[in-house]
């Protein structure tokens, strides 16, 4: 316990949060790369955005003279994620109406 103590959250909040957000980011990338279902891919994108948001707030709160900018940026990212989710889900439902499935490798009408 005493050897771990300097690495705990209360001693090194920035590193702890960065490692956690790195793991969330990698899980999101894995989801995006491997899934066929379009809704799953969208969930992977949300994971990646959340990892980025945690980094933004962590740097904003725990690094010198960062001020408020990281937190403001996170508000913009959340808004853009909402807009992106609305449009992407509308597209997914359009794909479902045309193909009967939402697998991304089936929607290849625009393939040359």
């Amino acid at each position, binding site marked *: 316990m005493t050897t771990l103590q300097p690495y705990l959250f209360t001693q090194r909040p920035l590193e702890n949060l960065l490692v956690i957000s790195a793991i969330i980011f990698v899980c999101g990338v894995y989801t995006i790369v491997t899934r066929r279902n379009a*809704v799953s891919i969208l969930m992977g994108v949300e*994971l990646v955005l959340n990892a980025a948001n945690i980094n933004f707030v962590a740097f904003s709160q725990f690094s010198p003279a960062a001020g408020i900018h990281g937190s403001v940026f996170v508000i913009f990212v959340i808004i853009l994620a909402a807009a992106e*989710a609305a449009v992407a889900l509308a597209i997914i439902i359009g794909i479902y109406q045309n193909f009967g499935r939402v697998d991304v490798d089936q929607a290849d009408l625009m393939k040359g």
Partner: protein
Amino acid sequence: MSAGEILLNAFFYVFALVALGGALAVAISTNIVRSAFALLAVLFAAAAFYAFMRADFVFAAQILIYVGGILVLIIFAIMLTHRITDVKVSNDSSHGPAAFFACLCVLFSLVVVIATYKWNRGVAPTEVEVAGDTAAKRPPVRLHLGMLQGDGKTGAVRGGMILEGRGFLTVETRELPPGWTGARIQIARAQKAAKAGDPPPWVAHKWAEGASTVEARDLPLEAKPAGAHAASLELTGLPAGKYRWSVALVPEAAGASPSPAAGFGASGESAACDFTVEAGLSRPIGMALMGPYLLPFEVVSVLLLAALIGAAFLARKEVKP
């Protein structure tokens, strides 16, 4: 470690486990509904991290928009694009091992960077010069005034702003002439100006120090590497408001008065540094959105309108001619 610190660590790692387990479940679960609910766990854990970082407004926005909006939208999409029978095994994946290896490499490099980079948590200083005194043969000294938030050793600096709660004022000097041993710290708080437009009058602020209240505090300047000397003062429970703190050097001779360089008002402002104590992030974020970020804010509102129209256009029923 105090009991509060142990509790804080324990709660943080519980939420960290929730976040990591949820993210893994999103990535590898074969059931898409389970994936969606694992995403719910991740989003809540992220909100908890914002709370740990004292970012209250972001915490509320995360829960309202992500959990209340985006996640519900995703679950709707799952329900609309799957028959009840095929929801169970509907989340197939491909190229698993190769992607796993690639992601592992990315994670490894990220963690190595995080662990080895020396994150700058030094004091972001304001340099001020404390004037010398020719009669007493005191040379001028350059002082670095800064503020820390968190625990005094590793905590972070927030330029010009600390949140209500715990904060640290730090003084650092590169050169300390012989004969000076300590720093006297005083704090002034801005009062309401009598007339609008007038500069606010500064009034000495007394703060709690254990059981008593004090007006000034003498701190020994402790030797740091490379000849530097530093002192830091922990502040708790400062009410929200505008503050100015100033530093005077304390001579070695007992009973001697501190160097006159620091003080409040017109004479000593050069040795002082302003900071604000905020009750939370809501007010600074609101000021930022209506101030320097006004144009991006308006552009985002136009983009939201475009997304609204686009989504409605995409989801409408085809009208057969």
